[in-house]
């Protein structure tokens, strides 16, 4: 097979090589030149810092799924190290299992983030923008409206006000606790209000989604002050093409389509950052602009934007994406203020960096990982899987 493909490659060598020379990288280089700002960060360890990550995993049985989700926060505050694990284990029935597990994990991460808030630098693994996307049952405008109407019908006009208060009380209650068996408020409501039929699926999706947005609101409120932000979402991989889109590409140009991360990785080597772009939170704008939900959720998120930038901390190190939530209500921070904020974050990260990446994120990634082995152990210990140790036997169960 290898010989066969090699033969083809050799015959096409000329064409392939010409493609490379045809590709016009100039427009991309120009974008990078325009936006990239070299900056050699200073090495400053923040007086307090925290990091959050999470994971999920599942075992599928005939007709149901056992899942486990875990959010994990870790903080060093005043020389003290604080751990904030938030987890859940339960069964789910189809449909929408994957999405719901993902959503639980995101909520668990948000709760964990809340528990380690108010440090000088809160680093959260992942993308804030992605967190705001509606779950599939609420994806269409109509579906969303209908779910909200149904919810208000079933649960009362003022329900979401109570919901908001319930979630707030819950968050305060678990702030210092290390083991919380039922971290999600939505589940309590779903059970206490008997929302168990397949007809209620839209309401359930709405409650779960809204819970995440509400917890997230509390996290952002805790960590964005009028004058400065202390929170940043960090992604090592991303398909964002906001900078790529700015490239001026002529009609006839043959230009590779690449993500922003690749763009900056290819065309730069030294430490630095891209001039930030302010991205509005489009997703939330599809929520109604009147009523309780509008007040509690849209009203808040309308005033928040994301300052998007790509950075590299050490020469030859990885480029990663930063999303810094900022208040944009009254015009928002100036470009200068934003850049000084980015530089401060970079200084901090340089103080925590190992191989160009903040160490606390490595640590929380490991600590929150739920492996297939963990799922076996959980399933076995609650009697869903027989206690057989021969691995071959286990394999038949999946």
């Amino acid at each position, binding site marked *: 097979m290898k010989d066969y493909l090699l033969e083809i490659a050799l015959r096409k060598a000329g064409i392939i090589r010409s493609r490379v020379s045809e590709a016009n990288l100039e427009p991309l280089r120009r974008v990078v030149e325009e936006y990239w700002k070299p900056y050699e960060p200073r090495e400053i*360890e923040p007086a307090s810092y925290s990091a959050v990550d999470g994971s999920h995993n599942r075992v599928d049985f005939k007709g149901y799924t056992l899942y486990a989700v875990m959010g994990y926060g*870790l903080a*060093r505050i005043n020389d003290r*190290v604080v*751990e904030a694990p938030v987890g859940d284990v339960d069964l789910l029935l189809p449909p929408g299992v994957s999405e719901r597990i993902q959503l639980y994990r995101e909520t668990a991460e948000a709760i964990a983030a809340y528990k380690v808030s108010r440090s000088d630098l809160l680093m959260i693994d992942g993308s804030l923008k992605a967190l705001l996307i509606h779950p599939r049952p609420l994806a269409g405008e109509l579906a969303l409206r209908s779910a909200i109407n149904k919810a208000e019908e079933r649960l009362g006009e003022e329900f979401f006000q109570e919901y908001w208060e319930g979630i707030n009380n819950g968050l305060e209650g678990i702030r210092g606790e290390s083991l919380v068996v039922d971290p999600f408020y939505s589940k309590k409501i779903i059970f206490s209000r008997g929302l168990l039929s397949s007809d209620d699926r839209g309401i359930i999706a709405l409650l779960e989604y809204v819970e995440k947005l509400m917890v997230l609101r509390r996290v952002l409120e805790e960590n964005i002050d009028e004058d400065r932000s202390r929170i940043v979402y960090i992604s090592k991989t991303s398909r964002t093409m906001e900078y790529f889109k700015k490239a001026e590409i002529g009609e006839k140009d043959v230009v590779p389509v690449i993500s922003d991360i690749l763009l900056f990785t290819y065309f730069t080597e030294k430490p630095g950052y891209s001039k930030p772009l302010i991205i509005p939170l489009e997703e939330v704008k599809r929520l109604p602009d009147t009523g309780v939900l509008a007040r509690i959720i849209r009203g808040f998120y309308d005033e928040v934007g994301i300052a998007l930038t790509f950075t590299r901390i050490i020469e030859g190190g990885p480029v990663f994406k930063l999303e810094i939530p900022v208040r944009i209500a009254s015009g928002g921070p100036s470009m200068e203020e934003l850049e000084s904020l980015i530089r401060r974050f970079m200084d901090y990260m340089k103080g*925590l*960096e*190992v*191989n160009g990446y903040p*160490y*606390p994120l490595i*640590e929380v990634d*490991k*600590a929150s990982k739920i492996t297939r082995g963990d799922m076996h152990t959980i399933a076995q*210990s609650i009697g869903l899987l027989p*206690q057989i*140790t021969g691995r071959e036997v286990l394999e038949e169960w999946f």
Partner: protein
Amino acid sequence: MVLDKGKLNVLGHIVGETSHSKIRFTSLRPPRVGEYVLVEYPPSSNGDLVLGIVERSNIGNPSLMVEGITPRYVEKAERLNLERNNYMIGQARLLGWVKPLIKDRKLITPNYPPKPGARVYEASPEVLRGIFERSPNEGWIRIGELVNHKGVPVYVNVSSIVSRHLAILAVTGAGKSNTVGVLVDRIVNELDGTVLIVDMHNEYLEIAGPGKTRIVEPKMHPANLSLQEYYNLLRLDPQASKQRMYLRKAYRELFQKGIAQKEPEKFLEKLEELIETYLAKYKGDAKSISDLLNKLSELRERYEGRLLSIDAPTRLEQVIEPGMANIIKLGDVDEEVADVVVSHTLKWLLEERKDYVMSSGGKGYPVPVLVVVEEAHVLIPRNRSTLTKNVAARVAREGRKFGVGLALVSQRPKNIDEDALSQTNNKIILKLVEPNDKRYVQNASETLSEELMDMLSDLNVGEAILLGMMTPIPALVKIDKAKRKTTGSDIMVHLEWRKWREKQGELEAETPDPFDLMN
């Protein structure tokens, strides 16, 4: 009562795959290697607890299990309180059911594994006492206490030592002689036992106390020595075939003509005279014969009247007095001679014990004897043949029936004869460092696992692993310190030097300065 699980402290839980002989468990504290644990089993007729011994103890930290980890990485991890992530894992070997061990003193190994997740308890002192504490009335003597469970005494069974033999192995200075001291003192004083110690360096003192210790000067009657023994005393190796031939001729003649029997006190003299007559008779071999004569007269000069003596004991009880610690001092004789003395005595003992047992006590030596051979690698070496080695092999094989036990003591285990060493079912292994020594000992022991062997380098002075039938279960023991001064202690070099200097100083002070006199 002692097995009430409610009273035990939980140490952790079994994880991973188990077997009937090995488990791994998470632990609330780092388990100590050599410590005993109790493992929970589903109830059975043997109870619901199995005793295990910790063979390995690990502390892990996932944060630091990273490929290509750098100091900077560790430094950053340190800031987030590394220890938070430590996990402790112990590995234990399962030894046997606790209930029969205590109730019937029987070691019954489990033949099925415990369940993953089952509890692992700390072994309580009560349980361990129940297993280890034994009474002198039943032939047990105390040897020390458990290293990992202070205050739990450990006893060894002396019948098993005598009938199944013993090896005491360790690097120099680790406590072999002290162990011999403790064993011999208690065997003699608590059990009225009889011991013969082959002391290669004249190092043993009153090991069993003043009234119970005898120093035995090695003495053999010249007329009682075999031809082979003369070969060895004269260092006539098989290549010296002519010298051997004339010696053999003379030796046989003395017996055939009844001279040896009639005048045994003149045996050496007569032997020399007879060989001298060969000089004239066999002129062609004059060189060999005069060589032989030279050696013979050297031997007489050196040992006649002392080692080769006509007042040598004729009864074995004169050499090995029953109920005593008898020490044969061999520090002043050559190795070849020591070999002859020891093999001679051992053979004598074995024969007399055979007589005793065969005649149901009508004749022969009246009591079983434990023979302690110090520097066993000298007299019972690997790759070399000695007289003692041949006799020792017989003792090792037959001693059980006749009550002659061997205790081989050595700091070079790998130089001891393999057969002899593996015939010693019981082992007291103190600190051993050399990998070849350790491997050799492991090959010669049924029950020394890889993990326990690894520990041997880390033992402190006086700490030992006990294996074999003399102990209810393998044990890591701190041997008692001998009550009496067993051996001469190490020389304190700097004190000796200072003493000398001070003495010189005194002498100088006493000696009047000659110039003073002139004034």
